[in-house]
């Protein structure tokens, strides 16, 4: 008989991230980026705040005038069942008060996001563990998931960092003409591509142009994230 | 029925050996139905049925509701059977996906609802917009086998006993008169289905059952919990006094000779007759005891 007790305290299975209606006070306004050649002021007034949810391992709140995304990360924690040589990521997206998206579509996006984070998180270091990520689309005024995806990636990435989970690179993405591209390694590699609608021009140059533009956005967001993380570090060191 | 309670090997051996020698643990004959005891509560449609140690409670209630769109002239009728740990440790709270519980619920559903024991057209108040919704809630209080039989008796006794408040209809407007004000009206009962459950035991090897000619399988009526735990097969026959088979369910289990199954049906009929009379009698007596003062009243008035 195997007498080892492999059970762990896992916390309530139905635990849900707390949803804040408004986070007005003490948001760290990270950057009021120079709005040079930005046609749409998407990055403008992007506020990021980490560690907003107490009872999870890592969390972020990303807000702009158009949306508000709350990401929480639980884990790495022991999973039940048979041994796995590397960690398992699950991602769940949830509609906010306004149900903009069908559950099937949200699941499609989440399984796509899992693909991205499988390639970014250093999963070998988390055998027999699960990392559960919940994203709450609290406010979304655009109703187009493609426009939201870069920020979903950004939010999850920062929440993972906040949770102290190893990743091999900062990952985020850009969106141009319905093409969503997620990059790593300074834009040398694509980790995710998503295009649901819009023309697909036979002209290759158009696609490559759009990729370039997405890359630009990616680099910008990436800088934003790095700056935020450095800022945060500084604050921590000070206090 | 139960997965968690198990019977010890020696006890099961004893019970099966006794059956082989024509004895049951409680001394009953193989084809003897336990005595049925029907008692009513204070309100109409509140019934407790006792068969040996098995106790089932059924409560009929009604409210006004909207009929289904595709059936504007019919009222609603719902039977809910609920197991709780009260009846025995083997039942889980809120887990209604157990094989036996589903079979049990489905059989009662077919026996009573599908067979049209209740006149649901009589529940219609205003076609397409208002009707009575009758609900039978069956609770298992104590389990010693025979849930299906007892539940069916409880539901039928409840339906016969139940009275719904009288109403007055003015166009779309419906006035419900509390039962204190006006004499409530009984439900329309079209026939009284009675379930009788047979349990089969194979005293020999499976090979004998499949290939043998002897047909020595043991048939026992109205099994107790222990017998239910050990049986190899089960047959529930539902009949009414009009010699109609309402429902038969032998969902797998020990293969049985067709003629033996037929003889089960005939045995079930005599039990049906007896139990039906008993239910009707019990309801009558209960009504009588409720009205014993009204007789006094009326006789005074007559003077």
């Amino acid at each position: 008989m195997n007498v080892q007790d492999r059970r762990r305290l896992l916390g309530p299975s139905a635990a849900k991230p707390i949803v804040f209606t408004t986070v007005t006070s003490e948001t760290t306004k990270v950057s009021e980026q120079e709005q040079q050649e930005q046609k749409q002021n998407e990055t403008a007034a992007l506020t990021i705040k980490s560690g907003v949810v107490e009872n999870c391992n890592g969390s972020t709140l990303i807000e702009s005038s158009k949306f508000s995304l709350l990401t929480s990360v639980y884990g790495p924690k022991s999973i039940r069942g048979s041994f796995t040589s590397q960690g398992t990521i699950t991602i769940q997206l949830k509609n906010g008060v306004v149900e903009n998206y069908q559950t099937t579509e949200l699941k499609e996006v989440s399984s796509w996001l899992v693909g991205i984070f499988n390639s970014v998180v250093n999963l070998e270091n988390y055998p027999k563990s699960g990392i559960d990520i919940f994203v709450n689309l609290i406010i979304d005024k655009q109703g187009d998931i493609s426009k939201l995806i870069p920020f979903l990636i950004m939010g999850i990435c920062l929440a993972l960092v906040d949770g102290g989970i190893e990743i091999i690179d900062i990952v985020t993405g850009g969106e141009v003409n319905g093409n969503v591209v997620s990059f790593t390694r300074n834009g040398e590699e694509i980790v995710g591509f998503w295009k649901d609608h819009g023309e697909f021009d036979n002209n290759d140059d158009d696609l490559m142009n759009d990729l370039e533009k997405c890359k630009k956005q990616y680099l910008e967001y990436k800088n934003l994230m790095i700056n935020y993380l450095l800022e945060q570090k500084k604050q921590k060191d000070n206090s | 029925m139960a997965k968690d309670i198990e019977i010890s090997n020696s006890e099961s051996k004893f019970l099966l050996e006794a059956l082989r020698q024509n004895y049951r643990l409680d001394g009953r004959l193989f084809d003897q139905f336990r005595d049925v005891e029907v008692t009513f509560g204070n309100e109409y449609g509140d019934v407790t049925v006792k068969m040996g140690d098995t106790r089932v409670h059924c409560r009929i209630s009604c409210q006004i509701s909207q009929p289904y769109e595709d059936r504007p002239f019919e009222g609603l009728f719902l039977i809910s059977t609920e197991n709780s740990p009260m009846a025995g440790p083997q039942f889980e709270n809120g887990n209604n996906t157990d094989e036996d519980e589903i079979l049990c619920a489905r059989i009662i559903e077919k026996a009573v609802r599908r067979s049209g024991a209740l006149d649901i057209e009589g529940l219609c108040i205003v076609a397409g917009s208002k009707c009575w919704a009758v609900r039978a809630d069956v609770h298992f209080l104590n389990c010693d086998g025979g849930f299906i039989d007892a539940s069916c008796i409880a539901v039928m006794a409840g339906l016969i006993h139940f009275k719904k408040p009288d109403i007055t209809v003015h166009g779309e407007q419906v006035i419900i008169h509390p039962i204190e004000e006006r004499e409530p009206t009984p439900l329309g009962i079209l026939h009284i289905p009675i379930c009788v459950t047979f349990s089969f035991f194979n005293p020999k090897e499976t090979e004998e059952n499949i290939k043998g000619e002897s047909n020595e399988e043991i048939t026992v009526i109205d099994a107790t919990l222990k017998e239910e735990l050990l049986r190899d097969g089960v047959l529930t026959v539902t009949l009414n006094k009009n010699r109609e088979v309402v429902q038969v369910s032998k969902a797998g289990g020990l293969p049985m000779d067709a003629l033996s199954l037929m003889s089960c049906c005939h045995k079930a009929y005599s039990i049906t007759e007896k139990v039906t009379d008993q239910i009707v009698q019990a309801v009558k007596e209960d009504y009588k005891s409720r009205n014993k003062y009204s007789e006094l009243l009326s006789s005074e008035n007559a003077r």
Partner: protein
Amino acid sequence: MSRLEIYSPEGLRLDGRRWNELRRFECSINTHSHASDGSSYLEQGNNKVITLVKGPKEPTLRSQMDTEKAILKISVNITQFSKFERSKSSHKNERRVLEMQTALIRTFEKNVMLNIYPRTLIDIEVHVLQQDGGIMGSLINGITLALIDAGIAMYDYISGVSIGLYDTTPLLDVNSLEENAMSSVTLGVVGKSEKLSLLLVEDKIPLDRLETVLAIGIAGAHRVRDLMDEELRKHAEKRVANASSK
């Protein structure tokens, strides 16, 4: 609605059969050899059923393990397109389907020699592509064939058929029009015996007529068994010839 004549005075049914005739019965085994250990495809009238048997195999869950015998699992998938009118729900977890699964498991539990496959799981999937009455019987026949194809030991065939009762005439192997218009009885018969593994009556039927209905049903089920047996032998001969030529 015009009343269809279920059974004409000349003794013909809606689809031209006489009272004691089965529907077209065609079956084949080993239809899905890649995906399963045993498989069958069955057409009984317009019922079309695919059955896959996987196992006996190592159970994936500890709860599916019994040290004494194999665990039998049957899941019935009634597709949304199986009826003429497409159904809105996928039928999964419907009580009616759960009841069917339970009845099928209990039917085959007593017929498959589960005790010679301890600690294993026999997983059966049935897909109903099309249904036209008497589906329970077709499920039984499909499973019987697939189990035999998988080489799983069983005592005998089980064959299923539904019989309707029109006034006083029993009608063998009812289709859905007949099934909706009258009471019917479903049988699962063991081999060529008169033993019933399964007997289901869901609607009112006079007690004194039941016996004749059972008699014609058993005869029909025996015929179904023979049809299945014929196909199996044909298949077996083909394979044996195939093997010995190589």
